[in-house]
């Protein structure tokens, strides 16, 4: 394998009944990613359970507790590779707590495979999976219409399902949807092309996973660099060295660029881009680097470097006119419309510095949200105390209907307003996942209780 292969992270959404585990097993098996000792272990288990054939789904269940109960509890990560790409599968169970697990796995995914049983078509759960994928902003969707062998490999049936799905998906923030007819059980269109469906001329699932373009999944325009750690070597030769270590979350930076440090608003110029492998002239997201500045400015963890100039895209006082949730703001990505002139602007934009903002929230904890309590919000490299000033509505993930609510329970998705003790440097989640996302931590238990997307 050459070193120039890319990494693709994807999730599979669907229940055991849709053949999800079989599909993953088939991908691993047909791409020769199952090792002999793994295969003999699941063969032994299948035999012990009195099964006639080897159950490939056993590859994807892990813990003793699960094996005893015959369910999968949590997100598990699987790894496989082809000569073209390396893959990480975020495998989530399709049972209760589905929302929590799927949101977790989807948060780092480039692509989501949404499984449909060709006999059943678009179901409530398909809508739920698609809504969650669009909420988390998964850039690419594959609608895998499985069990085509059960509908006589009918082109007409496939097209009916695709038509229905596309009508539904038009309401959501899904941009890149691919539909593939397949049979995981027999391997049709998973790795190998199907002889039974010569009417389908598109790629197989694996071909698509190997070729879908992911370079543009990160924001390449607006430089964002949250300071993680200040590098001050205690050695004589580095007496004056003050480096700001972090990962470029979006955009790029070059030596000599004018940068503004937020929230203070002070400016300087990039002096060096330091890496272990030597100084760079220019660095890009998502590289981890250390930056030094021409001027001595008081900077610490939690501050953010952005390019000087630019316009603020994210005007964000709580209660502003953005009264829609993320899923319905389709279309305006990448190009921003300058609100005063209506012209399309390709200039880089600035984040907002705010202590009050609105977000879509997924509540993850068994303990409901308590509006009278304070929490911590961790956003980029900054942690601040926060409280929830409003819950606008809860979204029914099955129907997309909005309901007024007083409290939030586990797996609820809601639009809320927050106040933080210190200002955060924020973007809309749609514009930049890394500077638009946050987690909420319970002050008393230290548990992670919610995931938020600034909207």
């Amino acid at each position, binding site marked *: 394998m050459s070193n120039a292969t890319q990494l693709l992270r994807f999730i599979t959404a669907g229940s055991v009944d849709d053949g999800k585990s079989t599909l993953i097993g088939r991908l691993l098996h047909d791409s020769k990613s199952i090792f002999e000792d793994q295969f003999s272990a699941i063969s032994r288990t299948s035999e012990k359970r009195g099964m006639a054939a080897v159950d490939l789904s056993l590859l994807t269940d892990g*813990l003793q507790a699960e094996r005893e109960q015959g369910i999968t509890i949590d997100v598990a990560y699987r790894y496989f590779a082809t000569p073209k790409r390396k893959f990480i599968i975020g495998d989530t169970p399709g049972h209760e707590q589905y929302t929590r697990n799927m949101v977790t796995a989807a948060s780092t995914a480039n692509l989501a495979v949404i499984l449909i049983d060709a006999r059943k078509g678009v179901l409530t759960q398909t809508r739920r999976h698609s809504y969650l994928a669009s909420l988390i902003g998964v850039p690419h969707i594959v609608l895998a219409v499985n069990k085509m062998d059960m509908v006589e490999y009918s082109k007409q049936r496939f097209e009916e399902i695709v038509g229905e799905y596309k009508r539904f998906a038009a309401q959501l923030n899904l941009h890149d949807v691919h539909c593939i007819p397949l049979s995981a059980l027999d391997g049709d269109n998973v790795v190998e092309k199907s002889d039974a469906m010569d009417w389908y001329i598109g790629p197989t699932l694996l071909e698509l996973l190997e070729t879908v373009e992911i370079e543009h999944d990160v924001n390449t325009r607006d430089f964002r660099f949250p300071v993680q750690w200040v590098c001050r070597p205690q050695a004589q030769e580095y007496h004056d060295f003050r480096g700001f270590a972090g990962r470029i979350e979006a955009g790029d930076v070059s030596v000599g660029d004018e940068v503004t440090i937020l929230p203070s608003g002070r400016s300087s110029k990039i002096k060096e881009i330091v890496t272990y492998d030597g100084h760079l002239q220019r660095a890009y997201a998502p590289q981890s680097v250390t930056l030094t500045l021409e001027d001595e400015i008081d900077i610490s963890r939690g501050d953010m470097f952005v390019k000087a100039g630019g316009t603020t895209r994210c005007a964000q006082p709580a209660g502003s006119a953005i009264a829609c949730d993320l899923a319905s703001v389709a279309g305006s990505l990448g190009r921003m419309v300058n609100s005063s002139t209506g012209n399309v602007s390709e200039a880089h934009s600035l984040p907002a510095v705010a202590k009050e903002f609105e977000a879509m929230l997924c509540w993850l904890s068994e303990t409901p949200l308590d509006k009278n309590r304070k929490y911590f919000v961790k956003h980029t490299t900054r942690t601040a105390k926060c409280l929830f000033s409003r819950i606008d509505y809860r979204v029914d993930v099955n129907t997309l209907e909005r309901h007024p609510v007083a409290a939030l329970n586990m797996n609820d998705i809601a639009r809320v307003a927050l106040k933080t003790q210190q200002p955060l440097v924020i973007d809309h989640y749609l514009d930049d996942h890394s500077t638009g996302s946050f*987690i909420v931590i319970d002050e008393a238990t230290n548990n992670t209780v919610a995931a938020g997307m600034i909207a």
Partner: protein
Amino acid sequence: MKLVDHNMTKHIFTHLDALESESIHIMREVAAECKNPALLFSGGKDSIVMLRIAEKAFRPAKFPFPLVHIDTEHNFPEVIATRDKLAADLGERLIVRSLEDSIARGTIVIKDLDKPRNPYQSVTLLETITEFGFDACMGGARRDEEKARAKERIFSFRDEFGQWDPKNQRPELWDIYNTRVHAGENIRVFPISNWTEMDIWEYIAREKLHIPCIYYAHKREVIRRGNALIPVSCLVQPKAGEIVETVSVRFRTVGDMTCTAPVESTAHTVEEIIAETATTRITERGATRMDDQTSDASMELRKKEGYF
């Protein structure tokens, strides 16, 4: 997110670049947010990769944490020599605590001193954590190694007894890590969670890392027990009727000498190891770790008891 293309020259960001940047980001989060972290360093290939990532994360400064090794005293001497050499070359602080100390204290009681000692490592690790007050220990475990690891978070929270509760893990979203713990609790952090065995070897090749010589093919006296080749050492001698053979082997993992088996190999360079790894049909631990094969859940049970 679809964004405007700046006509910039195309920068090729490979899977190794992506994994490396993620691991650097994780280590810096630990250094910035934890009060008293440590990096577990054994001299094995995964922890040698961790050291290079730490260099990339923190140079030109020193590491903001010490290196810690929990020595079973059952390690291969070549690995211990590499451990000491690398720590010295880097000028970083290495803390070694031995199972023998715990045995002397009476906190580990071992019937047979020559039996595998991995199950007891947890005791000395927890004692070391208490001795130094570490609130975070970074380890070189990978999710592709084993089923229980596949479900473990990158920041894995442990209670006061050092125990892992797989049913009660903190959700981990994006790359925003929750590092908060109460006094007495701590976290294990796995910066190379998402690396596979192949990634490790490709990185060793790319970075030209020095690894213990026993990872390369060499002639060694072994005994065949079941499917495994057991290296003959001061701790393992042939039983009556067993035949000692000299075979060209290499180690895919290095651990307790009594239970780490090498594989037959003629790979003398990293490139040759990569070629063998690409065609092997047996998993890393399946081929080499006899202690993980005692039951389907042995790793999960060890982790619940405080193993990393």
